[in-house]
């Protein structure tokens, strides 16, 4: 065999091996591209599915149904007292929030008196975000029960009863509907089949979510948030600590020279039978 021939054979074999290696490499590349493509498709599909599914599942910011007598452009606010009172007290509260319980137990009788004297019109935003941080459903189920009580015209009394019987924050007693229904027996006229089914069916669950979403978008970050004519007064109004006496003093100062609202309504707006969408429904006939 000549040297030349041997050279030629080796190159042919080398070329064949090279070709095979090249084929294998390109097949590996193709596989990699396919796998990478599949991964990206899975990820993109998950993202699109997430947006569509969660959008479908999320409750609307404007509630489909609101308790009777609620006010505001989306009917998210529960008012107590007479609508023509000169001062507006705005309160953001979560049924499970311990600081709200402390606030209510100290101030609820004062606020009730201010309402009955026609001095303040209280606007309650019943939020429900403690459930997000502490296991349980007591904020949402409690807020729904308060909405049911509003629907029945007994919000103020039931609200006061709830906060007087508030469990520890980590105890989800308000997540138990039987507990709420039992507490409702302390409010005259609230223990009805309509109220019971409203609580058990979570009738205003969508409304509760709307109220919370409204709070999420607000600039307020904790509860209780208490405003007098829009000015924060909890825990302090300027440099003055909030106390029942100071609250009365501040309200009187704000109301100076103004005509007081209808008195003696007990803040208990009679429940209109229709789904009242008209805001600022004064309640001179209550009592």
């Amino acid at each position: 065999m000549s040297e030349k021939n041997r050279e030629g054979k080796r190159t042919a074999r080398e070329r064949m091996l090279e070709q095979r290696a090249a084929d294998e490499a390109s097949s590996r590349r193709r596989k990699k591209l396919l796998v990478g493509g599949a991964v990206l498709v899975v990820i993109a599909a998950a993202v699109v599915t997430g947006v569509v599914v969660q959008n479908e599942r999320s409750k609307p910011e404007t509630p489909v149904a609101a308790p009777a007598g609620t006010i505001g452009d989306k009917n998210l606010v529960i008012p107590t007292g007479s609508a023509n009172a000169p001062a507006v007290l705005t309160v953001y509260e979560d049924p499970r929030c311990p600081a709200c319980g402390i606030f209510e137990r100290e101030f609820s009788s004062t606020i009730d008196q201010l309402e009955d004297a026609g001095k303040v019109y209280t606007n309650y935003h019943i939020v429900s975000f403690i459930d997000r941080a502490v296991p349980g459903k007591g904020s949402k189920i409690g807020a729904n029960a308060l909405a049911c009580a509003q629907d029945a015209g007994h919000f103020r009394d039931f609200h006061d009863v709830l906060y007087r019987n508030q469990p520890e924050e980590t105890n989800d007693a308000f997540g138990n509907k039987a507990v709420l229904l039992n507490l409702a027996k302390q409010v005259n006229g609230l223990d009805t089949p309509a109220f019971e089914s409203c609580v058990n069916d979570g009738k205003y669950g969508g409304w509760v979510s709307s109220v919370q979403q409204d709070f999420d978008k607000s600039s307020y970050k904790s509860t209780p948030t208490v405003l007098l004519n829009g000015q924060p007064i909890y825990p302090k109004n300027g440099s003055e600590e909030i106390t029942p006496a100071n609250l009365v003093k501040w309200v009187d100062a704000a109301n100076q020279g103004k005509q007081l609202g209808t008195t003696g309504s007990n803040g208990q707006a009679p429940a209109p039978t229709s789904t009242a969408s008209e805001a600022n429904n004064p309640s001179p006939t209550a009592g």
Partner: protein
Amino acid sequence: MAGPAVQPGDPVPTPSARRPVPVWSQWLGTAVRLGLAVVWGWAGLAKIADPAEAAQAVRAYEILPEGLVKPIGYALPFLELALALLLVIGLGVRLVAGVSALLLLTFIAGIASAWARGITIDCGCFGGGGHVDASQTEYLQEILRDTGFLLLAGWLLWRPRTRFSVDGWLAS
């Protein structure tokens, strides 16, 4: 996007005579892969139940415009679950590890930014989220935890070949 860039001009691609990966490392890789899968699965499931809560967790960072808050809050748990699924079956591990690392770096940056700006929030990493009392922030722990997860992703970026993976099955 997976693996090294394709070089069409290269006439002689290097054959698969790479340094062999020791077997123990492939088993460790399987554990790391499944560990990261559990992290993503847990994180995704915890965020999925309440869309409004997930959106608020995003909003509380005060970084994204309102228009992006809901899409991100809605998509994130599903993205995390997709990563978990891909890690469990072991498909495209290097790419999935890369996406995981990017996501974790984004989370760490977000938490650090909230910390630096003096916002008091829960990271919402595993559900929850939103504003908390200043005494209840846990930024350092949250960042350290995510850094630990980042190490898992980094390992898989370095050594993507693991036992019991679709990648391994496809290569054999």
